[in-house]
């Protein structure tokens, strides 16, 4: 049997040349964000009455939600199907999902004209609106993710609460609260874990329902009544590739050996998932006979072909190969292709496919929009690095042989 895995805090220093570069990109994004808040959305974006949604919705929100799918897919695998061997990847995936959804919420707020009214859906309901459903689900799911993360916080601080100065008098009380919290969560965590998976299935698919109401404004290659199903299936297939990509990147960054045996087992599930997605995508194309649009050379036909070939077909073939799954490089490339495919699919659905009836200019994101989007991505990576340094997230082989059960994830 392999060595037991145990989540540990990473010890490497926070700042490296790469981290400094990421920080600068993040600051650049913040500058443009400030302009947006002082002078309005029009001051930094290329949005118009023709193109009301840009990359802040297409990438930050739609693709952001899809790429955070690692959280619920690993939770389903590890907790619900109870496959213990995947425990090592659950915490990193949970952290990514938590950060990812937090930034989805922040991005929505940035894009809202009246960001300070973001809470309105809580009191003004519209059950007919797909956006209402997405909004409510995401709101609840973010809360669920924070609750799922709490046991990691209690594990980090129980017996180690050490506040400075006068506050140190509270140490005992806080420790007691943490212990009570830990016990409570231990008993109830499964409720939140199942809820997390249900909520994810709901809003991942409803995100696809969003564009259906745009009707003929959306290119027929993408506009289909099965969009919700396609969005859900693509979210299923991108979950594990995200986990694999992040795990390999983190291993490299922290000088660890990649957990190839776990990752290649995860990889073996990606092939079938991608296959199902591709089958529905192509089936839909043949039933609606939209392949006729592929015979003409347009932006839409080119983008659709890239999305299918580079983002689905090639990685599907790669994940079905034993050799690729056994090598970290192969796994990495295949995973990045799947991620690219889903990212492109969301961009295509929300931006490329959208052609308003009175279009005078096509949409391309402004420097400001790109800066903010890149800034958010960098902030997410920096926060990820901060969290894995200060909380036990990434599992390493447990050489000391400490009882594994002690650190098993609560609710498992």
């Amino acid at each position: 049997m392999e060595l037991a895995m145990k989540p540990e805090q990473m010890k490497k220093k926070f700042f490296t040349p790469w981290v400094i570069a990421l920080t600068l990109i993040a600051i650049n994004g913040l500058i443009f964000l400030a302009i947006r808040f002082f002078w309005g959305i029009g001051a930094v974006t290329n949005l118009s009455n023709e193109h009301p949604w840009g990359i802040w919705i297409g990438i930050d929100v739609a693709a952001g939600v899809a790429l955070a799918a690692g959280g619920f897919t690993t939770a389903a695998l590890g907790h619900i199907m109870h496959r213990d061997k995947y425990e090592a990847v659950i915490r990193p995936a949970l952290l990514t999902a938590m950060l990812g959804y937090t930034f989805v919420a922040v991005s929505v707020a940035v894009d809202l004209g009246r960001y300070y009214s973001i809470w309105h859906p809580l009191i003004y309901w519209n059950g007919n609106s797909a956006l209402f459903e997405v909004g409510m689900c995401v709101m609840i799911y973010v809360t669920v993710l924070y609750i799922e993360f709490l046991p990691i916080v209690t594990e980090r601080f129980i017996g180690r609460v050490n506040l400075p100065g006068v506050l140190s008098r509270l140490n005992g009380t806080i420790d007691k609260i943490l212990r009570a919290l830990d016990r409570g969560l231990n008993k109830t965590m499964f409720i939140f874990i199942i809820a997390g998976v249900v909520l994810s299935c709901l809003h991942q698919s409803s995100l696809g329902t969003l564009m259906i109401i745009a009707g003929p404004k959306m290119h027929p290659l993408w506009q289909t009544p099965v969009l919700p199903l396609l969005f859900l299936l693509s979210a299923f297939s991108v979950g594990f590739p995200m986990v694999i990509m992040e795990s390999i990147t983190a291993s490299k960054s922290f000088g660890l050996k990649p957990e190839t045996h776990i990752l290649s087992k995860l990889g073996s599930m990606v092939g079938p998932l991608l296959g199902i997605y591709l089958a529905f995508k192509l089936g839909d194309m043949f039933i609606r006979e939209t392949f006729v649009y592929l015979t003409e050379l347009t932006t839409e036909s080119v983008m659709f072909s890239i999305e299918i070939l580079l983002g689905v077909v090639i990685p599907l073939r790669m994940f079905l190969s034993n050799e690729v799954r056994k090598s970290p490089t192969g796994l990495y490339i295949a995973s990045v292709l799947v991620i690219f495919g889903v990212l492109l699919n969301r961009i295509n659905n929300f931006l490329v496919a959208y052609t308003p009836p009175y279009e005078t200019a096509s949409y391309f994101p402004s420097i400001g929009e790109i800066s903010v989007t890149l800034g958010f991505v960098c902030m997410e990576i920096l926060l990820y690095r901060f969290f894995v340094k200060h909380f036990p997230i990434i599992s390493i082989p447990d050489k000391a042989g400490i009882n594994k059960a002690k650190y098993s994830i609560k609710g498992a």
Partner: protein
Amino acid sequence: MNKQNRRDFLKSVTTVGITAAGLSAAAPTKLNAAPENVLSEDRMGVLVDTTVCIGCRKCEWACKESHGMHAGDIEDYDEKGIFNSRRRPDHTGHTVVNEYENDKNRSLPIYLKVQCMHCDRPACVSACIVGAFSKKESGAVIWDDSKCIGCRYCMVACPFQIPAFDYHKALEPDIHKCDFCFDRTKNGKLPACVEICPVETLTYGKRSDLIQVARNKIKNYPDRYLDHIFGETEVGGTSWLYLASKEFEKLDFPKLGKNPAPGVSESIQHGIFAYFIPPIALYALLGGIMWISKNRDKSEGEAH
């Protein structure tokens, strides 16, 4: 959950189940908490006879004037140079008149007034996340400033590309669109554009009557009009109806089917959330799988 025994687990599952059932019992009433969307038999409409319009743009002025927008001098609206480009309604004006070539008589261009069509089954009402849009008994589709969060989903949804947004306001940006002079008509007044129109291009009346009027016009003057009332059936019907001498597509009207714009998305939404049964069923299914997998693991552990 390692420490938790089977009875505890069952107990918790039951609790969750009861809570969920309670929620679902309360759900139908909550689901009705959709925005007002009345389709009154007596709803009003406007018939636009584009063969009559002279392009004086007085309607643009009256619209701005009655909605407290900067209207300027009415004389300035005689300026014809503005017709060199096609305009769309936006935050500076909720209606615009555009000029099109008349194939039958080049010296008499076709003028076309553009504003919200006030759909019978409006996409904006269905789409709006907070239900800030509503379809009133009068036929008007109006926007509620106090609910709007500025997400611009109405703009994505609208098949006529009508709602416009204040992109250059950092605080309280509004969605701009024709409100069918909701406040004026409520007090028995005509919509501002209808009232000022000097040549009776615009006829305000009950939508069902207007369709009759339009049919008679087409019957009596078959050379003057195309046999098509735009808005009678498009996207399930609109309160504003158009007659023209030239194909509507050549007048920049979008080609739309008869199905209401929100039809497909609403059936999907209501399918997924039919009395909350599908989500609850999924929850129960996953709970079951979780319980079985856990016990399988446990019995395997005991066997070793």
